[in-house]
Each structure stands twice: as C-alpha cells, then as structure tokens.
C-alpha cells in the first residue's frame, strides 16, 4: 500500500509537515503544494529534516505553487522533484491513496 501525502501548510506556521513525516511509511511519497512549498527551500531551517525524509520516501513539490510565491526552481533542495499539475495527477494515479494533511 503506497500513499501519496499532500501537505499544503508552511512548516514555519503549522506542524502538519512534521506530523506527516513522522507517520508516513517507507516507500510512500510526499507532494508539497500551496504554502507547503516553503519546506522545499534550500538553506531554510527544515532542510535537514527534508533530507532525512528523502532517505525513506520520494519528495515532490508543485512547480506552479513555487512560481506563485516567487521561488525559482534552483532554490529547491536536491532530491526534491518539481512537478506540474499533470505530474500531480500522475502521482495520484500511481499511488493507492491520496492523503491530504489539512
């Protein structure tokens, strides 16, 4: 059973990212959307946590939401893949469930 988790909150505002990462099982995937994209930025406080998470799960960030917040793709931590909405749909189809950490 593989799950695609979506997190739409900044980790500097809410703790839904930490809740997700501590409960997500190995082999699952996380897609950062909306304000969740702030977790994907290099040099920020959450970078070590994200790099650790990348060891056990696949990490993605939604490109249009990065752009909407003025963040260039080269600011994204290595190991986090940038996808568009079509990529979001592909991820949802490729996993057994989609779990939104609202």
């Amino acid at each position, binding site marked *: 059973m593989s799950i695609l988790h979506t997190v739409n909150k900044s980790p500097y505002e809410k703790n839904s990212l930490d809740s997700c990462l501590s409960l997500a099982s190995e082999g699952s995937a996380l897609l950062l959307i*909306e304000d969740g994209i702030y977790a994907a930025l290099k040099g920020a406080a959450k970078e070590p946590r994200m790099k650790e998470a990348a060891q056990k799960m696949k990490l993605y960030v939604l490109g249009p939401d990065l752009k909407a917040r003025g963040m260039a793709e080269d600011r994204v931590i290595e190991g986090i893949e940038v996808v568009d909405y*079509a990529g*979001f749909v592909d991820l*949802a189809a490729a996993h057994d469930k989609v779990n*939104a950490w*609202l």
Partner: protein
Amino acid sequence: MKFAIQVNEGPYQHQAADSAYQFTKAALEKGHEIFRVFFYHDGVNNATKLTTPPQDDRNIVNRWSELAAQYDLDLVVCVAAAQRRGIVDEGEAKRNGKDAENIAPGFRISGLGQLVEAGIQAERLVVFGD
C-alpha cells in the same frame, strides 16, 4: 482512472478552490474520468452565480461551470452546508420559502451520501482544503 474531488474552501478565500480546479482540469486533459466534484463546508461558495470578480481576475465560479459543460462533470454541493451559507436552487428556495435562487450552471445540491458514494465509486478521492 476514476477520480473524485472534494473541495472544502470557498473561492478567493483559500487557494484550495484554485488547486482543486487545476487538478481536476489536468486530470480531464490527461483523459482521466472525474466521477464527481463534491463541495463541502465553505466550498459550497464556489457555486454562487451572483459572484462578480473584477474583469482582470479569474472567475472561479464560471470556470467550474465551463469545465462542467465541456466534460459533463457532476458538481455536487452539500445541502446542509449550502443552506447555512445561502446557496439555493429552485427546489430549495421553494422548500424554505426563499424568493430567489443563486446556484450556478452545472452545479446541483444534494446530500453527504453523494460524497460517500464518490469515495466508494472512484479509485482515488483527492481532498483540497485548509
């Protein structure tokens, strides 16, 4: 693949309403089926035809209606959430003694059972909210 979408937030209030639309559109363009889009909580505000955003802004309500017309989508508004927020169709107006209706084209008002059914019938339920 068969998707169901749940929208919990209103237009111009939270990005969830935009994210849900963009996901739904991308899924349809990739040839997937959208079994139903269910509007719950403040999400029912996506269904008022009385909204008039500035001309240079996106019209979130019309965008849903147009997508529904193009792809024959089933856009369902939760009746209990709609009654609380003044989202009314002809039947609800009559039933509750209101002198107007405001449901946008392509939307229909129904119950929570429609969400349960969507969760069962669709292969994936994708939720957008705050």
